[in-house]
């Protein structure tokens, strides 16, 4: 009896947790009268129409199947929260799924969404090429395909992307100029092969190497978005090098790197990316010299809003760039202006960026 009870408890705990973890959501009515489907397990038994569907009107709810890399990642949690807010504002319904960072899981989820007959698929692909065959299938079923963060090279696929290469190129220019055009610089990336990571790495690298011949840019360190791993890597680098500056492409890892710098006692200047609130606070106190605000929430809101506009025929551009802003203090802003680095840049103070981070509705909402 006791054993059976334990077994039943374990099965229940496991099932509940697995359902929760694998992204199974129940329908919850949300403010504004729309229905935000939060992680539903399952598919309505509808077969997608293989013909091109007519454009929806503002009164039609746009049903979007969202396939993210991993819903436990801070970025996607925030993007999902804001995406649901956009669904409320723009009359859409989002079904969010995490793929445990596996391409094959993303393919299976998209197949499932095709069966459900969603209006659009919003995917942050693990592999921008590997995802094309299943997206072609979705396209043939009349579903609008939109990639998130990652550019998918297929005519029918729309993309919500950051202008990462140009932003990070500019960051490289600012960094190099700030340290006097010479010295040693380290660069911390996400994971090689990831489009966003590769693009940001290439931008920063080119920004340094094309402009400053006397800067020794060390090989990039793959921190895999893990602050503890980044901390270990930087601790090793600092043991053998005097680092003048470092750039890290995501704030979450930057916090761990700052700890390593403090422990080493070196005077390394830090440049980062994402524009998270905590990072903006560090910009304010001078620990981070410059950051670039993309913001997971802004990206999530902008993504869902743009998809509804594409489905309704209001937008036709294949590449849709999320507006981004450089975050720096007044003295740094003046430094950029004095050195001719601020052309074409949108610069915000940390306080403005913090406000912007959470007020995405004001920036991109129907009233904007």
């Amino acid at each position, binding site marked *: 009896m006791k054993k059976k009870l334990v077994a039943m408890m374990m099965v229940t705990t496991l099932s509940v947790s697995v359902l929760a973890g694998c992204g199974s959501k129940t329908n919850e009515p949300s403010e504004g009268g729309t229905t935000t489907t939060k992680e539903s397990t399952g598919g309505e038994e509808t077969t997608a129409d293989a013909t091109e569907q007519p454009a929806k009107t503002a009164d039609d709810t746009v049903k979007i199947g969202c396939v993210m890399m991993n819903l436990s990642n801070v970025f996607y949690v925030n993007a999902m*929260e804001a995406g649901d807010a956009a669904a409320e504002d723009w009359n859409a319904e989002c079904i969010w799924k995490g793929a445990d960072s596996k391409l094959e899981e993303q393919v299976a989820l998209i197949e499932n969404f095709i069966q459900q007959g969603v209006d659009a698929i919003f995917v942050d692909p693990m592999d921008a090429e590997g995802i094309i065959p299943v997206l072609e299938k979705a396209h043939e079923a009349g579903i609008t395909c939109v990639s998130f963060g990652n550019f998918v090279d297929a005519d029918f696929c729309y993309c919500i992307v950051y202008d990462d290469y140009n932003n990070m190129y500019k960051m490289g220019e600012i960094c190099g100029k700030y340290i006097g055009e010479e010295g040693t610089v380290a660069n911390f990336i996400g994971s090689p092969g990831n489009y966003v990571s590769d693009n940001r790495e290439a931008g920063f690298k080119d920004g340094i190497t094309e402009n400053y011949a006397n800067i020794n840019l060390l090989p990039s360190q793959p921190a895999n978005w893990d*602050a503890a791993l980044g901390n270990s890597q930087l601790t090793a680098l600092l043991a053998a090098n005097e680092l003048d500056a470092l750039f890290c492409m995501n704030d*979450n890892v930057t916090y761990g790197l700052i700890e390593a710098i403090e422990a080493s006692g070196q005077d390394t200047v830090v440049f980062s990316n994402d524009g998270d609130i905590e990072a903006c606070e560090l910009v304010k106190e001078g620990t981070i010299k410059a950051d670039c605000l993309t913001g997971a929430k802004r990206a999530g809101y902008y993504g869902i809003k743009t998809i509804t506009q594409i489905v309704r025929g209001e937008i036709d551009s294949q590449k849709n760039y999320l507006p981004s802003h450089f975050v720096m203090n007044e003295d740094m802003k003046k430094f950029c202006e004095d050195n001719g680095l601020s052309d074409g840049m949108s610069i915000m103070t940390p306080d403005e960026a913090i406000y912007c981070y959470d007020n995405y509705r004001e920036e991109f909402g129907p009233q904007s």
Partner: protein
Amino acid sequence: MGNGALDKKYILKKVREYSMVLILVVFLAVMQILQPKFLSPANICSILYSVSGSGIVAIGAMFVLITGGMDFTAGYGVALCGVVGGFLYSKSGSAIVMIVGCMITGMLIGLTNGLIVTKMHIKSFIATLAMMFTIQGLIYIICEGNIVFLDDPLSKWLGKGTIGGVIPMQALILVGMTALAHLLLTRTRMGTYTYAIGGNEEAGRYAGVDIDKYKILVFSFAGICTGVASCMMVTQVSMISPTIGSTTLMDAIAAAVIGGTSTLGGKGSAFGTLIGALIIGVISNALILLYVPTNAQYLVKGMIIISALYLNQLMNVGEK
């Protein structure tokens, strides 16, 4: 003559026993030649910091491997312990509450693994794989994307404190956990039965050993190790986020196997695992200091690990 042969046999036995230590020494020597700053105090500390968390996870993994099982929950387990600890810290502001929370969460993960394996009769390989997904889901539910910064003096001391200004606190904890694991394996009934389960589980069962009880104990201990490792990693970076430590699993299992733990069960030692963890740490550190290009780092690391394992195997040929 007879004594000479005996001595030779004895020396050979010792060489085999400590083959991984020799490989580690060779690594250190080669690296010192290639990079003169490799054995500097700062870099030695850097290696110790980097292996302390994963080394403790490796000790837990070693226990499960000795029983012939496998535990895939360690990586995300570290992250879950941290997230729970962070939640408790944000509510209480106390590092002690956070530490206790991490340890209890780790123990509960291990306990659940043990119960699934023994009471539901699911192979540990599959059970812990399913638990890994469960843990990911729990991280998502609990964390909701929040980052918690640790500014408590105790967490600062745990993360960056040193003894005598030289030895990192974290390295001492690793050594302490290794000693505890050694005592458990060699001086307690739990240790004897851990080897017995891995050697021949059925024979142990016929001999009246409560196999299920000891398997649950082993998984729970592995879970506690996960909790301790989580505390160390989050205090090292003074923050808690859901991705911290999630990349630890493979390094930990590799460290245990390099350290002589058999994946078939019945064999392994705490000291060997410590050496395995150090070898992994030295390789990772070397790749950074030799400026190996990013894309080649995983490849080179994998190849060095395979070489080390093969070398170890060659040195142990004829042992049986």
